[in-house]
C-alpha cells in the first residue's frame, strides 16, 4: 500500500476523491456567500427590516466600531476565558471523581441515584440560585458552565471505565500489578478515545452553560451583550454576538479535533 508505484486505477481513484473534496468545499462556501448576499439584498430592497434583522454591512460596521471602542475583544475574551476554565475544571474534576468512584464500588452505588438526578436536572434552573449564593461574578458563571457538563461526564466516564475487558485487568493482576497500576496501565489508556470524545461534547456544553450564566447575571461577556442588546433594541449587537459565538464554537471544536487526530495517529 505504501509502495511508490501506484497503479493507474489507484491514481484515478485518488484524484476523483480529491476532486470530490474540493467540490464539497465549493458548495459549502457558496451556500455562505449566497446566504450573505440574499440577506444584504433583501434588506437593501426593504423586503425585511434591517432594524430587527440587521444586515451583513451593518454588522461589519458595528463590529468595526466596537473594536474601535475596545469593547468587542473584551467581551469575547471574558466569555472565552470562562468557557475554557469551566471546561478544564469539568474534565479534571470528573476524572478525579470517576477514579474515586472506580476505586470504591460502595461509593458508586451510594452516589448513583444522586448523579442520575443531578444529570437529568435542567441546569439552567440552578443558575439563578448560584448567583444569589455566590454573587454575580465570573466564578458563578464558571460554575454554571461546569454544572451543565460535569454530571453527564462523570456518568459517561464511569461507564467507560466499567467497559474495560476484565481479562485485561486480570492480565495486570497476573503480572503482579495493584489497583493503581490497573488504572494507569489499562483503564486510562483504554479510555483515552472516550475522554477525547467527552471533551468534544463538553466544550460545547460549557459554552452553553457560560452563556446561560451571563444571561442571568453579568456585566460582561457575549451572553451579557446579547441580553443587553435585546433590551435596548441594539439588535446588531445581538446578531453579531451570536455570529461570534458560532466562530468560538468552531474554533474550540477544531482545537479538540487536533488533539483527537494526534491521538488517532498514536494508536
Amino acid at each position, binding site marked *: 500500500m505504501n509502495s511508490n508505484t501506484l497503479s493507474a486505477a489507484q491514481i484515478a481513484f485518488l484524484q476523483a476523491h480529491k476532486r470530490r473534496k474540493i467540490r464539497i468545499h465549493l458548495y459549502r462556501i457558496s451556500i455562505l456567500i449566497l446566504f450573505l448576499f440574499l440577506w444584504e439584498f433583501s434588506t437593501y430592497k426593504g423586503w425585511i427590516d434591517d432594524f430587527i434583522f440587521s444586515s451583513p454591512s451593518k454588522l461589519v460596521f458595528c463590529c468595526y466600531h466596537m473594536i474601535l471602542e475596545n469593547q468587542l475583544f473584551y467581551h469575547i475574551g471574558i466569555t472565552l476565558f470562562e468557557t475554557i476554565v469551566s471546561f478544564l475544571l469539568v474534565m479534571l474534576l470528573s476524572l478525579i471523581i470517576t477514579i474515586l468512584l472506580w476505586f470504591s464500588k460502595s461509593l458508586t452505588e451510594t452516589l448513583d441515584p444522586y448523579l442520575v438526578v443531578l444529570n437529568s436536572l435542567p441546569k439552567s434552573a440552578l443558575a439563578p440560585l448560584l448567583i444569589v449564593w455566590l454573587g454575580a461574578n465570573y466564578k458563578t458563571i464558571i460554575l454554571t458552565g461546569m454544572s451543565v457538563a460535569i454530571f453527564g461526564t462523570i456518568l459517561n466516564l464511569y461507564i467507560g471505565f466499567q467497559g474495560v*475487558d476484565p*481479562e*485485561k485487568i*486480570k*492480565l*495486570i*493482576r*497476573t*503480572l*503482579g*500489578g495493584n489497583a493503581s*497500576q490497573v488504572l494507569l*496501565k*489499562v483503564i486510562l*489508556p*483504554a479510555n*483515552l478515545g472516550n475522554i477525547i470524545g467527552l471533551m468534544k461534547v463538553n466544550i460545547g456544553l460549557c459554552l452553553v452553560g457560560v452563556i446561560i450564566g451571563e444571561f442571568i447575571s453579568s456585566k460582561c461577556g457575549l451572553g451579557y451583550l446579547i441580553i443587553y442588546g435585546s433590551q435596548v433594541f441594539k439588535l446588531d449587537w445581538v446578531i453579531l454576538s451570536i455570529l461570534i459565538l458560532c466562530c468560538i464554537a468552531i474554533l474550540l471544536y477544531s482545537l479538540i479535533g487536533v488533539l483527537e487526530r494526534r491521538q488517532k495517529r*498514536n*494508536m
Partner: protein
Amino acid sequence: MEYLISCQHMFYTYHTLQGETPALCDIDFQVKPGEFLSIVGPSGCGKSTLLSLLCGLIQPESGKILLNGQNVTGKCSIGYMLQHDHLFEWRTVKKNILLGLEIQKKINKETLKEADELLKTYGLYDFKDARPSQLSGGMRQRAALIRTLLLHPDLLLLDEPFSALDYQTRLQVSDDIGSIIRKSGKTAILVTHDLSEAVSLGDRVLVLTPLPAGIKAIIPINFPPELSPLQRRNTNEFKDYFNLIWKELNLNEL
C-alpha cells in the same frame, strides 16, 4: 522428591446472588520441577478457575497450594498466559512485552538487553516498534510469551494459549512454544480443549470431570525426550494416548 507446586484437597465455589456454583472439588496433585503438565476437561468445568487459584488471584475455600513449600500469594513468581494475548493496541510490541517489568519496576539495562535478545530469538525484533495489530496470530502469541518469560517465572500457567489461532498456525505455534518452554527447562501447566495438543506437549495429562471439576485421571505420557511436539504426533503411541484420554473424558457421560 521435592515438588515445585502441590495442591492439597482444594475446593472452590463461586458465590453470586443467583446462587452458588461449586467449581472445584477436591483437587489434589503435584508437579515436579521441569515437568510439563497438560490439563484437559469439558468446557466450563473450572479449568480457568484452577489456574487463577494456582497463581494466587483467588484463594481456595479450603485446601492448600504450596509453591516450593510456601503458600502462594499474589507476589509469587508465577507466569500466567491468559486465554487471549491481550497485547495493548496503544503500546508498541516492545512496550507490550516490557509491561510486566514495568509493573514490577524492574526495567534496567540488563532487562532491556534481555528483552531485545528474546525479541531476536523469537523473530520479533524487526517488529519491535510495530503495533500489535500488525502482527500475525502466532507472532502475537510469541510476544505474549516473551512478556511472561521476562519475569523469570518458576512456573508457567498457560490457559488455552492457542485457542484463538487457526489450525495450521496452531500446530506451528504450539510446536514452537512447546519447544521454547522445554529448552528453557521451565515447569509448565497447560490447560487445553484439544486432546492432541495435551498429548503432544505434556509429560502427564490430568483429566478433569465436568462441573464441579474433580480429578478424573492422571495419565503419564512417555515419549523419547528428543521428540518435538510435532514429531510426537507422528508416532504410533500418540493415537493410543489420544484414545485413552478420549475414553476417560467420555466415561463421565455414560
